[in-house]
């Protein structure tokens, strides 16, 4: 542990800076980075969304025409619906499995905690592209491992409705359930044991202990975990690209993939920018509502 640095030991020139300059020195780089990599792209994308762009050509100003085009396009709504399905299924399953595992490990398998925790961390260290590719290899209708294990000829969930969407969800659940598990386990370990003991002495069943004693005490962790996963699950991309490429048909084409196809495969920059902004607004509203709820109830932020 080092000795704390006193102001008197700062370089002479730095200590002479005015308060304002000092603030600028510390905050400036962060502000510059924020402007360069967040604000500028957002503004640039908004400008692009107001023009008819095609193959790098800024053709003409169309106002909010690109936005209206999106709302009129049934494929836009389909992509939003696919996004909703994926998000609800992924986050829901991750929550249920993660919480269940955390309660089980906390209550019954305390001795095995370090092993289980380490093993469950592995998916978190895996890149989503690798998850998608691995699932594709596992489920390939010709050479997939599952074909051999279960000896089912032509078993091809990635190519059929509605299983293709479920395989994308499965990939996401496999990767992100451990995230929920780790957060819930940490929260559960912070719950005082005497509250559980007291409930047990009062005759509460296992379910009642969990429902009325344990869960309310880790509610803040649940909300934070759900919020973080929700923001991420709304933009699943890598797994879709490597596993199904949005197919069959459009069965797994979520909003992010649809934007990618519009902007980077067909080069309709204006349409893609408008779609992106619609998604940004929806996400911001959703996250804003959730934050407001959390803030009101748990005084977290």
């Amino acid at each position, binding site marked *: 542990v080092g000795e704390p640095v006193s102001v008197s030991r700062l370089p002479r020139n730095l200590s002479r800076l005015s308060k304002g300059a000092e603030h600028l020195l510390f905050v400036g780089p962060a502000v510059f980075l924020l402007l360069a990599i967040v604000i500028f792209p957002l503004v640039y994308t908004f400008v692009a969304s107001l023009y008819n762009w095609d193959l790098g050509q800024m053709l003409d100003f169309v106002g909010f025409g690109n936005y209206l085009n999106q709302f009129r396009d049934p494929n836009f709504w389909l992509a939003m619906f696919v996004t909703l399905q994926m998000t609800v299924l992924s986050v829901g399953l991750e929550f249920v499995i993660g919480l269940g595992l955390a309660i089980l490990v906390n209550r019954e398998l305390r001795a095995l905690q370090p092993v289980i925790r380490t093993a469950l961390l592995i998916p978190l260290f895996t890149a989503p592209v690798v998850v998608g590719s691995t699932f594709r290899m596992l489920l390939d*209708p*010709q050479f997939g491992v599952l074909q051999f294990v279960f000896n089912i000829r032509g078993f091809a969930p*990635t*190519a059929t409705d509605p299983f293709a969407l479920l395989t994308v969800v499965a990939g996401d659940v496999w990767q992100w359930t451990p995230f929920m598990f780790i957060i819930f386990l940490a929260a559960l370990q912070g719950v005082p044991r005497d509250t559980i003991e007291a409930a047990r002495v009062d005759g509460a069943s296992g379910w009642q202990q969990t429902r009325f004693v344990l869960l309310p005490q880790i509610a803040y962790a649940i909300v934070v975990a759900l919020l973080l996963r929700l923001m991420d699950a709304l933009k699943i991309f890598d797994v879709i690209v490597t596993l199904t490429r949005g197919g*069959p*048909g459009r069965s797994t084409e979520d909003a992010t993939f649809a934007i990618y196809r519009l902007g980077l495969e067909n*080069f309709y920059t204006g349409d893609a920018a408008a779609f992106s902004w619609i998604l940004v607004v929806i996400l911001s509203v959703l996250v804003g509502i959730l934050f407001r709820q959390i803030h009101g109830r748990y005084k977290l932020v």
Partner: protein
Amino acid sequence: MEQDIFERILASTLNRRQALKTAAGAAAGIALAACGPSQTSGKAKSIKLLASDLPPFLQANKYWANQAKSRLGIDISIEPQPYGNLFAKATAAWIAGTADFDLIIVANQWTGEWAQAGLLENLDSYVRSDSGIKKDDFIQRSWESTGSWKGRDGQQHQFEIPFNSEGRIRFYRTDLFEKAKRTVPTSFPEYVDTLKFFKNNPDFPNVYGAVEMFGKEQGPAIVHELYQSTFPFDSVKTSNGWWDDNFQVIMDEGLVADAIRKINSVLPYQPGGVQAYNLPEAINFFEAGTAAMTEVWPSVYGATLTSGTKLPGKVGASPVLSATVGGPSKPFLGGWGMAINAKSPSDRKQAAWEFIKLSTSAEAERHDWESYARGPSRKSVYNDPDLQKKSFWLKAMGEAAANGVNAGRIKGMADFYGGDFWVTCNQGMVGSISPEKAASGMKKALVDLLTKNGYPQK
């Protein structure tokens, strides 16, 4: 107007880079002049080719790059890209001003997009002044539909030299059909009978009647073929059945829905997972000996036949299916050419042209056919009886090239293939939406596509 803006965007990027390059070049030139003999030459010594990674194409490019080194003294570095990435990669590089390639392999559907934006070099003067290209030997349709496009002056110009022109054909297992004492189907109703015959037939265990490409990338081509086979070409001036010669949408929704319904109805007779099959999957399945037929691009399966098939002597070739018994077979046509990046310096363009001449020559096409089965685009190769004897599918390819129907030629063809039109068709094929809904979605997508690309609909 729109072209001017694009040119300005490109020019602003290029001018800065070129100014720097020119300054650096001038400094280097002065240094060289001061230190030694002059190094002037009208032709660069090394250039770059942005290529496709399709095996027969890439193998041919590599072979002729070696030949160019020894015959012309030009080093060709090759950057291969998967078919699915090539268009996006090149376009993004042009837009960003980082297109460092001098030569590019161009699928015929991309020509309009790039030529109209001024990104491909107009080759008219090269062709006019260089008889070495032997223009008359190319199949006329290939020369026109693969390589030419209306330039900014409204006139037709040559932007690519074709090196591949082919229509899809059907490969089948001669031994299985002989054993079954059946003829190879040429129409859709006969095809359905064949599929039913092979389905769970104890005499042919584990053999499907066919494996087709239902995947998003290739699948809709088969709908195109069935539709074109029934389209009344006599009633309207059109070359493709999707829009007329005035670029007005004439797609017949009923016929398209019928074509989609047909292909969707045979899904139960195909192997599991076929909804995601594109070229590699269909060819692997056929090569594994578990399907009696498959319809693919002949250059791609031809490469397997040439380099070492697992089914030697057991494969035959036939035309693609007509929609009705006795109806016409209308194979889906494709083609590739080689073009010069209009933004390359002139000495590199000259070297690029030398390479194009070499690698698209009759000698090259013959060599590439015999070595890698890369489909030719020259009459002298297609019609060579010796080659037809050696490669049984060359004749079927020639017929397909003669009878086939191109998807059409507009500026937005890249979007036609990967955008809403194509994907909506695929949704119908795999049963995600009804054939009627798919056909109506395709028509809407087609109207949008033409309107967006500067072909207003009345």
